[in-house]
């Protein structure tokens, strides 16, 4: 419990401390931020080591009453799915901070304040087990991100940041209405104990809500998450925001912020509105598949490296959504691993793009060529990140995509091979656009004289790239280290889903230590009753 509180609150406390530091003392602020986020990472390791993989339920649960009339509380905790993502945050944050040491040259104090505030809110989103608290963290993300893109971004940053802000806000306000409606309905109609925002309470009974209401609630939550993911056709804010954001902003945006959407889909849509999720799974999977192919095709014609990587995110996140809505244990496992993978590989690609942008101040592919001869180490790192993103067996990307595709293939709910077959073309396209880009940037002759004097990686850059590579290889070679953590939580969810749909329990061994059985019977009775 205590490590979780520290992991959540240390970034907030540090960010407030920064406010009291002297603006001129940039070095202090930088290193303070870095050390604080490294300590957060070390403390979050305790979460990992003390975590009980065999328990599918919430662990480290903290419940402090906050607003008694709303039954809203400071309720946080982790299960296998959220643990992996929290670890991703605490791992990526110091890297993002380290990467901005040279690239952020104005208003450093405000910048590092915003980054730490952002980290606090992100951990909050993935740990909150109260819809009210979740919403607060969810919206809190917007403010630092708005300023990070808007103040330290590129030329077109005003447009990008406003677009990002408005898009996200539209979605999340519908979620707010749904949260209130849900709290009211569950509290006053089903439990009859008064308004509630307690996640665990709602989860137990939310599927008793009649399907027509459930559908509305499902979409109110889903739209907000789809915008964040972003699922085709709600993705248009993403390329702008990514292109204009500073490197660290892009890294955090890609590695973590997009995962908030996919995490929310699992955490809220699947857990709460199981029947509605089953009913809408095919439709959403179609959009996921379109997103996979569309993202890849659009990425292929980009002339700006960063934009190319941004569109590749649309494609990769399509796999995650497909995995989630395959509603199989393998598919959801794959989705979670793919979230982590995408955080690592796309995060690394953005870091690498940032590195070359700092040296040449352009991201146009046509400006480069033959870089491999000038910056061999850089080219090697880029190759690793690229192959990871392509999904080369032996690296992490392969595991995630493979599992999600298997999930979609074997899914009894989608019940069609078409999704998996269509989606797997996305893997091929990914190879096309990434390899083609790599070829144009790194191979060939150096025909642009301004590229001749580019310096290879500095020690600082080594320092933040190597840890990512370690995990890219580790997940690729031994994924069970990570899949074991989320396995039981996922299976429990799939138990619930299959129970609703087919009345069977595919993983009965989990029933021993949970009260799932009674609940699912209730749900079944309710279904038959209608």
């Amino acid at each position, binding site marked *: 419990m205590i490590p979780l509180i520290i992991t959540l609150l240390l970034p907030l406390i540090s960010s407030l401390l920064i406010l009291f530091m002297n603006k001129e003392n940039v070095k202090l602020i930088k290193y303070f931020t870095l050390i604080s986020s490294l300590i957060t990472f070390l403390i979050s390791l305790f979460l990992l080591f003390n975590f009980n993989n065999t328990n599918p339920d919430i662990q480290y649960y903290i419940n402090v009453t906050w607003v008694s009339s709303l039954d809203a509380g400071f309720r946080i905790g982790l299960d296998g799915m959220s643990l992996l993502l929290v670890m991703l945050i605490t791992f990526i944050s110091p890297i993002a901070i380290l990467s901005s040491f040279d690239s952020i040259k104005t208003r450093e104090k405000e910048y590092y304040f915003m980054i730490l505030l952002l980290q606090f809110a992100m951990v909050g989103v993935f740990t909150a087990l109260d819809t009210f608290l979740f919403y607060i963290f969810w919206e809190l993300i917007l403010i630092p991100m708005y300023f990070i893109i808007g103040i330290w971004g590129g030329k077109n940053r005003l447009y990008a940041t406003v677009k990002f802000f408005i898009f996200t806000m539209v979605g999340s306000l*519908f979620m707010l209405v749904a949260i209130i409606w849900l709290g009211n309905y569950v509290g006053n109609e089903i439990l009859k104990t008064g308004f509630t925002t307690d996640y665990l309470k709602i989860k137990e009974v939310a599927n008793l809500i009649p399907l027509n209401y459930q559908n509305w609630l499902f979409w109110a939550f889903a739209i907000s998450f789809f915008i964040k993911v972003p699922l085709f056709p709600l993705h248009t804010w993403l390329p702008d925001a990514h292109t204009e954001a500073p490197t660290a902003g892009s890294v955090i945006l890609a590695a973590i912020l997009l995962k908030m959407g996919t995490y929310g889909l699992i955490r809220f849509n699947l857990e709460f509105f199981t029947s509605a999720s089953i009913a809408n799974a095919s439709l959403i999977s179609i959009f996921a598949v379109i997103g996979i192919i569309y993202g890849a095709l659009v990425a292929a014609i980009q002339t700006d490296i960063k934009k190319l990587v941004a569109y590749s995110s649309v494609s990769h996140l399509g796999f995650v959504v497909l995995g989630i809505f395959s509603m199989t244990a393998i598919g959801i496992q794959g989705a979670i691993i793919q979230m982590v993978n995408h955080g690592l590989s796309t995060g690394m690609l953005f870091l690498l793009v940032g590195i070359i942008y700092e040296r040449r101040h352009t991201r146009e592919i046509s400006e480069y060529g033959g870089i491999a001869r000038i910056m061999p180490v850089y080219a090697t790192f880029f190759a690793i990140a690229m192959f990871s993103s392509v999904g080369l067996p032996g690296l992490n990307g392969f595991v995630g995509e493979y599992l999600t595709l298997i999930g979609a293939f074997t899914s009894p709910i989608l019940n069609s091979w078409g999704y998996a077959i269509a989606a797997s073309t996305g893997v091929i396209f990914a190879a096309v656009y990434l390899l083609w880009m790599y070829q144009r940037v790194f191979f060939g002759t150096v025909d642009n004289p301004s590229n001749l004097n580019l310096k290879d990686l500095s020690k600082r850059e080594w320092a933040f790239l190597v840890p990512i590579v370690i995990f890219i290889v580790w997940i690729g070679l031994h994924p069970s280290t990570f899949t074991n953590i989320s396995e039981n939580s996922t299976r429990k969810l799939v138990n619930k889903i299959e129970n609703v749909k087919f009345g069977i329990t595919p993983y009965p061994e989990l029933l021993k230590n949970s009260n799932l059985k009674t609940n699912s019977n209730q749900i079944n009775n309710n279904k038959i009753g209608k």
Partner: protein
Amino acid sequence: MTITQSYLNNLMASVGYFAPEIAIVVTFIVAILFDLMFKKSKNIAAYISIIGLIITGFILSGNIGISKSLFDGLIVVDPYSTFFKFLFLITTILIMVMSLSYKELYDNNRKVGEYYSMLVGITFGMFLLASAVNLITIYLSIEILSLSSYVLAGYTKEIRRASEASLKYVIYGSLSSGIMVYGMSLLYGATMTLDVAKINVAILSGHVELFPIIIGGLMILVGFGYKMSAVPFHYWTPDVYEGAPITITSYLSVASKAAGFAVFIRFFKDLYLLPATSDINIWNTISNFHWQTIVAVLSVLTMTVGNFVALWQENVKRLLAYSSIAHAGYILMAVVVMTNVGITSILLYFVFYMIMNLGAFFVAQLFANKIGSDDLKDYIGLGYRSPVLAVLMTVFLISLTGLPPTAGFIGKFYIFTAVLDKGFVWLAVIGVLNSVVSLFYYAKIFRNMFLRSVADDTKNNFKFSAPAFPLSIAYVLAFATILFGLYFSPILNWAENSVTMFK
């Protein structure tokens, strides 16, 4: 016992509970007299007014929890009115303190004694209005409130736009109060009584003509709508808000609006009050007439027009004026449901709205002191020139947008809860869409402050901050905005206890 004697007894019993209002009147008189006597000390009226109002606050705290009808049913003292009275007091005191550092007001060696005493006069009017349960007291207190407001709106009389504002305010004001008083006469004609509770009894008895009551009610709604600046009775608002001194603008946008809502809710609640056993929606007391729909339409119009027109504004004062119209629309959403939950959420919202709106106007005033302009384009780069004030402004704006973790979010959350509780999903969705629109123009202000920077060569590139005292007030308001976003149970409990009279 003769009639005279019982009247006197009643009077004597009532005077004790009327002490806060008496204290205000005394403050008013003392402030004017001292201002005349001590011509050298400019702010004496201000200091006396502030001290007097603080004393009033102490006296008022004696009325907490008391429910009593005074002066033969002309006014009542109850937790509901006491809540609003505290709100008015705090707002007035804050406005007075803010006015002390308002440059435009002190320009040209202007005498400001009347300014502060007029504010005390408005407070008196609002106190009465929150308590009024008789058509005569309602009308009189609205007029007391309005007359002082007209004067204050044009207080900086050499400024053309202020005089224009004042004149427009008078014309619109007299029109609407004329319509209102006509409506009252219809009610009186139909029921032969001025007491709202007795009119209610008459309606419930079923022996009255309903047509004049409905028309009368609609006409009275015009008068209240004018005070609340609900669309379509809002035409005066932007011009007056832009023209008036900014302190008065923020005062009108908070206190005067709250007074309008206080009387609006009480009047319709009392007028259509049902016997306690009945659980019919109070709006359905008069069958075949859909008050609820009318208020819902009013609410939708108010927030939508307010927000959309605010989008095009290039002047921060005017923008905030339209935003305050939109906020009236959000509050009206909760009036639509008229449940205790709804009224609680209104009271809660007003406390938060007071803090954040006063804060935003105050920072705008501090900016205007230095840069001499309220234009949005002059806000460009203020985040660099005056970082502290700009950050404070951003806090208030985020709260006005309704984003967590600020008080504005909590206020909106409770309003939506009240609305959804009664199943008005469509209304909540419109409210939500309006919040998105509002984000657009609030963001325009902090976008200009932070995300755009001025060209280095302009002469207007000096850095500045505010003097310590005004700055500390802004800090307190900003702190409260965030604090109430995280911890608001005391205020919520207070608001819940204040609506117990509406059973």
